[in-house]
């Protein structure tokens, strides 16, 4: 009890709790109720449906790959933005948040126009025999787009606070640049990198707006799980939609727990004396 003399404990407690109760908890309770209402038949049907399994695999497997790509590209971009000085650096830095600021539907149709076979990039990729739009690859591009800022924004403050003397010490002890990177820098950056990776992953797994336009939504191939929820709702299969939503939330929950364990482990590793 720091400062109970301050006014407004009762008021702010009442307001905050009732708002959260009405906006967040009550609707989530409705979800749990509807999903438990779904009989064994609904659940069995979901888990034995090849189309549902394929969609879940694309949403979570795709998000995993997209977040890995984000981690690689984000590490490079954060490094360049923090360590190098070049004209236009601040402008580029501001644009990192574009995927956060751009509405997902806008990002969706823009990426589709860009990567479609007649688009600016799609044309060149088609020449190389690579198909992106209306294929699973398009799903990956959209997922990587929306998750990208998370990695850069979690790495930047850590890189800025990094003591360069450690790198110099490693180099003066004869470490090659690659060794300095893998043995000194990467362990220090690992917890932040994992945080960014986890945020990008969570965002990509549930992503809808930016994915559905570029995906082409071919059943079994480029159909994401949130789209199946929408389709079930359109067929008034509320129980099926609720059950699928619970499965998605469960998957996300397990993934985030795994990552937080990984993070704790990498954090311990970074604290070991070098």
């Amino acid at each position, binding site marked *: 009890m720091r400062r109970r003399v301050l006014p407004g*404990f009762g008021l702010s407690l009442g307001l905050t709790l009732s708002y959260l109760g009405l906006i967040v908890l009550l*609707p*989530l309770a*409705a*979800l749990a109720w509807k999903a438990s209402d779904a009989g064994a038949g609904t659940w069995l049907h979901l888990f034995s449906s090849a189309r549902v399994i394929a969609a879940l695999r694309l949403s979570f497997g795709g998000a995993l790959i997209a977040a890995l790509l984000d981690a690689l590209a984000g590490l490079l971009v954060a490094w360049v933005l923090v360590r*190098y000085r070049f004209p236009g650096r601040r402008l580029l830095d501001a644009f990192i948040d574009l995927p*956060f600021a751009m*509405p997902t539907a806008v990002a969706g149709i823009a990426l589709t126009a860009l990567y479609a076979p007649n688009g600016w990039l799609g044309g060149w990729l088609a020449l190389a025999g690579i198909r992106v739009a209306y294929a699973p690859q398009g799903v990956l591009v959209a997922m990587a787009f929306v998750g990208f800022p998370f990695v850069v924004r979690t790495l930047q403050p850590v890189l800025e606070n990094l003591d360069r003397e450690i790198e110099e010490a490693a180099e003066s002890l004869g470490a090659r640049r690659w060794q300095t990177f893998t043995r000194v820098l990467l362990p220090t950056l690992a917890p932040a990198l994992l945080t960014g990776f986890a945020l990008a992953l969570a965002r990509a797994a549930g992503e809808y707006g930016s994915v559905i336009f570029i995906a082409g939504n071919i059943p079994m191939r480029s159909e994401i799980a949130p789209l199946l929820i929408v389709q079930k709702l359109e067929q*008034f299969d509320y129980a099926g939609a609720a059950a699928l*939503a619970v499965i998605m939330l469960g998957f996300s929950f397990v993934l985030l727990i795994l990552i937080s364990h990984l993070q704790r482990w990498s954090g311990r590793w970074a604290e070991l004396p070098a």
Partner: protein
Amino acid sequence: MNAIVMRRASAWPQRTMRAALLLVAVAFLVVFLLFPLAVVFAEALRQGVAAFLASIAQPEARSSILLTLLVAGIAVPLNLVFGVSAAWLMTRFQFRGKALLGTIIDIPFSVSPVISGLIYVLLFGAQGWFGPWLDAHGIKVIFAVPGLVLATVFVTLPFVARELIPLMQSQGGEEDEAARVLGALLYGVLLCNARAMGEFGAVSVVSGHIRGLTTTMPLEVEMRYNEYDYVGAFAVASLLALLALFTLAIKSLLEWRYADALAAHAPGGH
């Protein structure tokens, strides 16, 4: 001795390596982030300025703009009041269950937009908890404006609270506290508004896509796109892209003005 020789030998490749990394990173950002932005305006103006203007002057476009402003105009102030209240509660008092409360505030950020809409359908839809009661009293929530507002309030709920809580927790000088809190407040409202106006997935589930009545700007973009009216879709999309650019500009301005207050912040998720 060996090390010295090696470092001299690697002096030139190191400079090349820096240039290569810089080039790759900048090229990646231009292609990956700026091309999608540029293509929105290019496609919107593909058939000239007149076609663009005619497209956004259509009644459905105008009603979608008004609806977007209305929904954000209700959702953002509500979440502003909630955010201030939650931040005051979380930073000025000690009580049991505080950590749990923080987790609950963050829930909307970790839920798929589609599920964010779905939960309101399950609550207020025809087969939902309150569906029969609402139906008997002639109140429409789903496939109507109240549903759009509720879904938007849900997805944008954490923004203001999340900016204010870490700031009000840190011990700062009393004299500049007001300015720093104002900075964080503006920052939270800015992000909350950008998301509220641009929300698609959650709103799409509860909207029913009734033209002129329940289509916000992002939904109008989707409908025009699916009707092969590409210029029209990108024209409305370009207005939303301008909003995104405006948001980024103000965000940079706030970060520069309140640099110390907003520093070392975890990024705001969507």
